[in-house]
């Protein structure tokens, strides 16, 4: 939680629950910073700076909590209610959770992105629980005619020790509902040692439904009379529809409609041109689609080919920095005078998100009203897109949030939602479910952008890193700015830790849609910068953890981010996780087997501090990862250890797959060359390493875990490969030549 939010005015509203009981709504002002904390929020509808929490307690003691954030597997539908329930001081078994619809006016930001939900909600959720508890206590005190100070609570019951009286929450809930709400500043929150639910391993709220195959995902939505839709778009990015031969498809079995749709020319943030095929069964619709005869204008994407990008990037390095973004001290002079200079170029490819549930959305349009069921990480952004592309006002849209079969950032973008809305609008009164094939999903992603870095570092006569420069070649969107998720992080380590520094940028225009992928920016920048710093450390006669620790020496200090975005970097927290992982991995002990070695890396992103060590072995061109040690600091409290550990392990394996599974998206004239999971591979069970996690609990409030564990594992791996083989990995995915 960001402290400035606490002092602003929090409002409570109570009412009698239908059927008796207490309904409590808490309105909490949010700091503006929480709204703009990540790239996703920029695409979301402007949300009011108020967050509401709904809690109700029925006469039978059942506590119902409305979960406002989208659930993609990060566990937020379980962990936010845990915060409320703990301060309410009830039992977790009393709690039921309802998923909220999209309603920014009511709930504030509803985004699953940027690992922001935990820090944003940590205090408000607890305040809501504490407020409800205070009202129940007050109601019992009035009923028993005793002072509220003499009353205690435990596990959903209220006790008055002196008189021996007790009551369940349910029994006093209706009486509490007619009381005036308490002043938020009077609420006493628990000390961490009093927590009974926070910090316990709690099974995910939807898990019992998942193991039984209950319909809870977006793709499972079924409505009476619903038709199944596919949407054919141009094979190349930004292609326009010239003509559509639809007769053969229309005559195919099960087909009800074939509808060419003209988009609004904005394939990135609007409706792409395409042809919708609607049938009584999705497979029939997809079969019929093969019989479409569509002519596309693909001119916009001519020349947007991976090899051409590579050539342009190399030319940009020769031409020199296009734009200086950050300069500290005098890097030019100090580089010239350095006792030793190290230069290297790094690069990484475009990659896809490939969530298991392909993009889909169900919609029905009738009488000017649109109702949608969408697996989306950023509902607000989808509503804005529909309004802009189809002219349906957001007041006329009801958006139900479904559980998502993974997101990883893909579902922050809502192109599938605007397509479903457009198709539904073309067949008023008929519900439609749009579903993309895996091939659609692979070829219509908003990819993690590729990038190139030309690094140089200078070591002074004392063996100290004194100057560091990076020329970053990245992609430029149609608005002239860096493409989405393709910008430089001006605070990228070692900025702030080295006296003389330059970060510069050159940009290549692209028509390819780019977007945030789990730990956006960081997932690539960390690989490049921590791998290069390992080279610097070796050149300086030391190793990377020692180099990092030497830069973090001295008084614990906070370094403010250069561009004013995001939290400060705390040198003490960084030092602590590095020292922790050196200890848990027994860093000084080197593996004895030939071709087997350890590598280290550290990174700070999304408010989390992570240091990781990978032990890997190389046989010929084959790499095996045996063990990964993780030390992480995400604040003073792990909310749900069971969920937290799963997030970290998933992030580690995800990062390793980016490096080792050959993940790369290539383009020829804007046409994506990959199509399915055979040519874009994901991690599989047999390559799962042992992963050991150590939490470093600091004095800061808890922050999110969906992302920050991922970035360091990639350079920790590449640095291990260097020790094992003597070969530097300067390009992803890792491709070693057989010895």
């Amino acid at each position: 939680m960001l402290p400035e939010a606490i002092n602003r005015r929090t409002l409570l509203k109570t009412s009698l629950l239908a059927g008796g009981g207490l309904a409590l709504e808490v309105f909490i002002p949010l700091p503006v910073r929480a709204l703009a904390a990540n790239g996703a929020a920029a695409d979301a509808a402007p949300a009011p700076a108020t967050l509401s929490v709904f809690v109700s307690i029925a006469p039978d003691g059942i506590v119902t909590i409305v979960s406002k954030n989208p659930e993609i597997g990060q566990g937020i539908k379980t962990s936010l209610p845990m915060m409320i329930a703990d301060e309410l001081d009830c039992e977790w078994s009393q709690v039921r959770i309802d998923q909220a619809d999209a309603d920014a006016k009511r709930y504030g930001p509803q985004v699953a992105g940027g690992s922001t939900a935990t820090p944003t909600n940590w205090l408000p959720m607890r305040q809501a629980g504490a407020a409800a508890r205070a009202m129940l206590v007050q109601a019992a005190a009035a009923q028993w005619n005793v002072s509220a100070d003499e009353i205690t609570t435990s596990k959903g019951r209220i006790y008055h020790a002196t008189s021996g009286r007790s009551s369940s929450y349910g029994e006093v809930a209706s009486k509490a509902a007619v009381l005036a709400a308490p002043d938020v500043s009077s609420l006493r929150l628990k000390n961490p040692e009093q927590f009974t639910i926070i910090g316990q391993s709690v099974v995910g709220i939807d898990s019992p439904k998942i193991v039984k195959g209950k319909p809870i995902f977006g793709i499972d939505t079924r409505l009476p009379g619903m038709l199944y839709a596919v949407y054919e778009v141009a094979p190349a990015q930004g292609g326009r529809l010239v003509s559509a031969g639809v007769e053969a498809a229309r005559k195919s079995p099960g087909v009800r409609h074939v509808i060419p749709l003209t988009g609004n020319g904005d394939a990135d943030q609007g409706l792409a041109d395409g042809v919708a095929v609607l049938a009584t069964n999705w497979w029939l619709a997809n079969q019929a689609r093969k019989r479409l005869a569509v002519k596309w204008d693909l001119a916009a994407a001519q020349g947007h080919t991976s090899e051409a990008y590579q050539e342009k990037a190399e030319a940009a390095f020769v031409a020199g920095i296009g734009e200086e973004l950050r300069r500290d001290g005098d890097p030019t002079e100090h580089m010239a005078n350095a006792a030793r200079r190290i230069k290297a170029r790094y690069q990484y490819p475009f990659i896809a998100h490939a969530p298991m549930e392909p993009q889909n959305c169900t919609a029905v349009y009738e009488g000017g009203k649109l109702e949608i069921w969408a697996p989306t990480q950023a509902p607000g952004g989808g509503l804005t897109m529909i309004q802009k592309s189809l002219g349906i006002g957001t007041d006329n849209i009801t958006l139900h949030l479904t559980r998502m079969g993974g997101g990883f950032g893909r579902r922050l973008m809502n192109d599938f939602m605007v397509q479903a809305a457009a198709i539904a609008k073309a067949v008023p009164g008929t519900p439609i479910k749009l579903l993309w094939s895996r091939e659609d999903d692979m070829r219509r992603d908003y990819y993690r952008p590729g990038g190139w870095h030309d690094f140089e570092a200078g070591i002074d006569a004392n063996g100290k890193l004194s100057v560091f420069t990076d020329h970053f070649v990245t992609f430029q969107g149609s608005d002239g700015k860096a493409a989405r998720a393709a910008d430089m992080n001006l605070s990228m380590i070692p900025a702030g830790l080295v006296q003389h520094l330059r970060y510069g940028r050159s940009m290549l225009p692209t028509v390819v849609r780019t977007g945030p992928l789990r730990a956006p920016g960081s997932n690539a920048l960390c690989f490049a910068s921590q791998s290069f710093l390992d080279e610097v450390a070796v050149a300086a006669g030391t190793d990377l953890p020692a180099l990092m620790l030497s830069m973090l020496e001295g008084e614990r200090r906070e370094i403010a981010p250069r561009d004013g975005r995001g939290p400060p970097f705390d040198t003490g927290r960084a030092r602590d996780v590095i020292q922790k992982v050196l200890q848990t991995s027994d860093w000084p002990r080197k593996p004895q087997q030939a071709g087997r070695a350890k590598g280290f890396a550290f990174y700070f992103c999304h408010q989390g501090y992570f240091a990781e060590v990978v032990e890997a072995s190389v046989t010929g061109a084959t790499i095996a990862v045996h063990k990964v040690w993780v030390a992480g600091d995400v604040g003073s409290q792990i909310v749900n250890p069971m969920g937290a550990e799963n997030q970290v392990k998933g992030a580690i394996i995800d990062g390793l797959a980016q490096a080792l599974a050959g993940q790369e998206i290539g383009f020829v004239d804007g046409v994506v060359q990959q199509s399915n999971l055979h040519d874009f591979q994901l991690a599989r069970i047999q390559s799962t390493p042992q992963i050991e996690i150590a939490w470093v609990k600091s004095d800061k409030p808890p922050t999110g875990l969906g992302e920050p564990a991922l970035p360091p594992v990639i350079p920790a791996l590449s640095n291990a490969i260097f020790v094992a083989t003597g070969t530097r990995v300067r390009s992803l995915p890792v491709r070693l030549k057989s010895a």
Partner: protein
Amino acid sequence: MKYKLHINERVHEVEAPADMPLLWVLRDELGLVGTKFGCGAGLCGACTVHVNGAAQRSCQTPVGSLRNARITTIEHIGETPVGARLQEAWLKVDVMQCGYCQAGQIMSAAALLGHTPRPSLDQINSAMAGNVCRCACYNRIQTAIQMAAGMQEDPSHVA
């Protein structure tokens, strides 16, 4: 074509072309949506069902090939002792993150335990290699299968 399919101990009548994959009969014709669509190419295992007790990718199984076959899906696997043990173990270690692939994972695991009641880690990995979990809950999948096989006690907390 009209087909009588034996699914989850019940007979269902469907009308579909012979080459329609079982996946789409289950999901769109019968409303059994627990079986998931992931890749449509037999690469991810999300659509795994049992045909006569063997794990099979329903996206690669034409409905026309299923006359007289006994089909079991995730909606019914809990009725078998192995399926029930797996579901219980899955919850005990809370295997899942997003959960989308887990129906297929459980179906593959149930087929494995059907013919190999006490699998080694290598046997588990080999039987489960065709099932992708994008969230990478693989450590817990291994643990849950071992628990369901009675080879591992409740790990209380999975490290």
